[in-house]
């Protein structure tokens, strides 16, 4: 162990740069939240396409899910930001490339979640809705979605947690999020241990808060059984 004249752990530098770290944390949360929101919309569209009666929609949706569930975020990010952007000569800002990649990836996972959530609704529910004279669209909106929503709250929360964790990878393309700022501060102050510990703690807090929020939502909406 190194023998320093000063104390072993020095968190003064971390504390004095709290403003930068907090800003980085906000950027990370912004990126993760925006990406998850986009992924929910896109995921729903893809899930509906997969359940469509038109074969070509199903194939496109299937290819989409398989592709984005198979590719690692790091590879996608590097491919989009360093490969695609250079090849077709578009000026993609780092944050845009990052959020887009994160959203596409999460949409791949969420579409499967949505699909299984929708399929889990008993077909009797749909038949009953149709028998009451509701239109197909109304049945979906008023009967299937609200029930499917209850089922998918927990996996959706997990996906949000994953997005928060994955957002750390955005630092490699220079998005000024928490991990990027921590890296720079760690190098500047030559205190990697302190800064990375702090970053880890902040992610830990964010994940714990989201998990707690998901649990609360689940308790609120899932008091009755969603099936049948």
């Amino acid at each position, binding site marked *: *162990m*190194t023998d320093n004249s000063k104390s072993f752990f020095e968190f003064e530098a971390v504390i004095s740069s709290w403003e930068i770290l907090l800003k980085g944390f906000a950027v990370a949360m912004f990126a993760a939240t925006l990406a998850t929101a986009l992924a929910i919309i896109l995921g729903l569209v893809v899930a509906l396409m997969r359940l469509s009666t038109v074969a070509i929609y199903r194939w496109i949706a299937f290819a989409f899910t*398989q*592709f984005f*569930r*198979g*590719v*690692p*975020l*790091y*590879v*996608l990010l*590097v*491919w989009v930001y*360093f*490969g*695609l952007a*250079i*090849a*077709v*000569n*578009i000026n993609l800002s780092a944050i845009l490339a990052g959020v887009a990649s994160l959203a596409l990836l999460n949409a791949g996972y969420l579409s499967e979640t949505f699909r299984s959530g929708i399929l889990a609704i008993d077909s009797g529910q749909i038949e009953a809705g149709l028998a009451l004279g509701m239109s197909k669209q109304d049945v979906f909106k008023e009967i299937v979605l609200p029930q499917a929503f209850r089922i998918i709250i927990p996996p959706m929360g997990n996906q949000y*947690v994953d997005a*928060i*964790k*994955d*957002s*750390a*990878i955005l*630092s*490699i393309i220079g998005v000024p999020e928490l*991990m990027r700022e*921590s*890296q720079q501060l*760690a190098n500047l102050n030559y205190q*990697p*241990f*302190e*800064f*990375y*510990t702090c*970053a*880890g703690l902040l*992610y*830990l807090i964010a*994940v*714990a808060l989201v998990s707690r929020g998901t649990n609360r939502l689940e308790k609120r909406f899932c008091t009755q059984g969603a099936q049948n």
Partner: protein
Amino acid sequence: MRNSNYKFDWNVIEKYWPEILKGLIITIQISLVGMVFSILLGICLANGKLSTNLLIVRISTSITELFKSIPLFVLLFWIYYGFSLKFNFALTEFQAGALALGLTGGAYMAEVFRAGLLAVPIGQLEAAYAIGLSKMQSSILIIYPQAIRIIIPPMVNIYIGLLKGATIVSVIGVSDMIYVARYVSLETFAPFELYSLAGIIFISLTLSISGFVYFLERKLGRSKVDG
């Protein structure tokens, strides 16, 4: 969109594919080492969670939650730059990468093992005791062989996660596939082609493994242990 000056040169792939393949082998190696470590850690944590000692349960649960919550990317930096410098603990890039993968994977594995062990009906254990097997014997001979069937499909899924996670170890300088692709693209200035190749290799790898899981699930599902 402006006219692109980028000249597609797919010949680089022909020229450099052995290098990329070498990188891929390192990616697979590090993910496998990480996997072995995850399994060991997962077994320990799962048994800790199922312990009758409340303190051990608390500790195992906290460790699981900790490594499930910290991003792999942060853990990697924390281990390689933070921890090893602070405590003068010399780790190679490969070791640090495998350790980070193992810790994250172990936390997920703990949940899988716990669920698998709990899924074996309690009557099996009671029966094992009744015929005079010791605690150790009944775990090894009765519980684990039955639990393993339930555990294997999610375990392979965790492995896919680790394989995908293993792509980021290049940030600390492990010469894996992405590292090679980046290195070669600096030389040839053909990033699009090289990253595309890396992506395609990766997708085909993960898809074939998940296809295998699907097959396993159907195969093992038929002989599932039930009450």
